[in-house]
């Protein structure tokens, strides 16, 4: 009914302070595809992606720090989940 959503454009209006080189979320190597699919669907920021050739991608920049991935897959395919260090991460101007 509507076009495919472009979450990156939505994130583009947000204010982020990315802690370059210090990811606060890390995936395990070769994550279980079923678990990964959950995060593809649930992550509000659309950070868990699969490309046309089936390769998976994840980027912690753009994270809204909601914790959805931790709740869904914290025990399965996330090796690390913590809040970004103080001052880093998303900064809501409205909230």
């Amino acid at each position: 009914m509507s076009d495919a959503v472009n979450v990156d454009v939505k994130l583009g209006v947000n204010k982020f302070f990315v802690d370059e080189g210090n990811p606060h979320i890390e995936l395990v190597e070769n994550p279980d595809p079923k678990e990964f699919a959950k995060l593809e669907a649930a992550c509000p920021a659309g950070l868990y992606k699969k490309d046309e050739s089936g390769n998976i991608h994840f980027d912690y920049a753009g994270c809204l720090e909601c914790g959805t991935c931790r709740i869904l897959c914290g025990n399965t395919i996330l090796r690390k989940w913590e809040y970004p260090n103080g001052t880093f991460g998303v900064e809501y101007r409205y909230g």
Partner: protein
Amino acid sequence: MSEDKFDAIVVGAGLAGCTAAYLLAQAGLETLVIERGNFPGAKNMTGGRLYAHSLEKIFPNFAEEAPVERCIVHEKISFIDETRSTTLDYASPEAGDPANRSYSVMRSSFDQWLAEKAEDAGASIVPGIRVDDLIVRDGKVCGVIAAGEEMEADVVILADGVNSILGEKLGLVPKVSPHHCAVGVKEIIQLSEQQINDRFGCSGNGGAAWLFAGMPSAGYMGGGFLYTNKESVSLGLVFGLHNVAEVRKSVPQMLEDFKNHPTVKPLIEGGSSVEYSGHVVPEGGLAMLPKMVADGVLIAGDAAGLCLNVGYTVRGMDLAIASGEAAANAVIAAKEKGDFSEGSLSSYKSALENSFVMKDMELYRNLPGFLDNTRMYNEYPEMVTGIMNDLFTINGASAPLRKKVMPHLKKVGFMNLIKDGFKGVKSI
């Protein structure tokens, strides 16, 4: 730093944390609030509506000075299927008693206002620092570890939000389960004050709150919401996480489709999106409440799972404020006794039990189960909009009313209607 010991350290400068800090500082306790965002509210997000009563108790007539957006005087609830909607609309003048009002708010400004109140009362607020761990000696929480420093306190209040990693580390908060929470996404869509007044039938500082059941959450537990702010609307939805493996479209796509629904699209036409946010909503009710007190520590707000989704309204902020107040009172009493043990701090729990917080959590204990019924989000919206369609479509000779309604009821099934009706009445 470690040689000066605080009376209380509060983790998180949200509504629970700042309320607690304000009351503690006002009672003369040395209080430190540590917030990981660059300012209080920087990490916080709400659907958009604050029920005033619990903050009115602490700051009478707060809305006269606090940065609230609009006073909600229009309530709308819509059942929507993919293209149609049926709306229940309630309008009333602004309530005479400020405690009966509710306001649309945005956390980034609102939390800063409340934090300033706590600071004016004497609390120290340190933003931009993440608390990494708690100091625990002989089973008693004695302070926090943040940015490589140890800071000691007689008592720590954890108001660190729905993913309370610190509460989990202590073994007090169970890891949030997908069955007990929803993910919320929201866009702030800028429109002029005049556009909002015209589109939502508002004037002055009056505003509208609008909930949508059915299509927004792709036919699963959840729903859409819209709140009018001064010069923007907050449009979003929540989706129960336990259904994530069943769903065929992503949560961001659900929001996009919701924005494009024929009922919603004209409301936001011409508006520009200025922020996109996401948050987890603790929706488990009574079933997810943690152990809220232990030696030297209390847990408040979202971290304590205090949130109520009652279907026609969703509350969390008024509970957070009341729990912050109850926690502060328990700490003040503990300070007077010089006893910060679990037993002494347990007055927090009894205060919550005697307040609306636990009474409401108890009252609605069966609602999460009742609302987790896909008929609520599929068959019923279809049924209602289908009946409306037949009532309002004229094309030749009319059929008796009863004949128009019956097929729609049959489609859902009479047994289902009776069962859900019975369960619904029982759970409220």
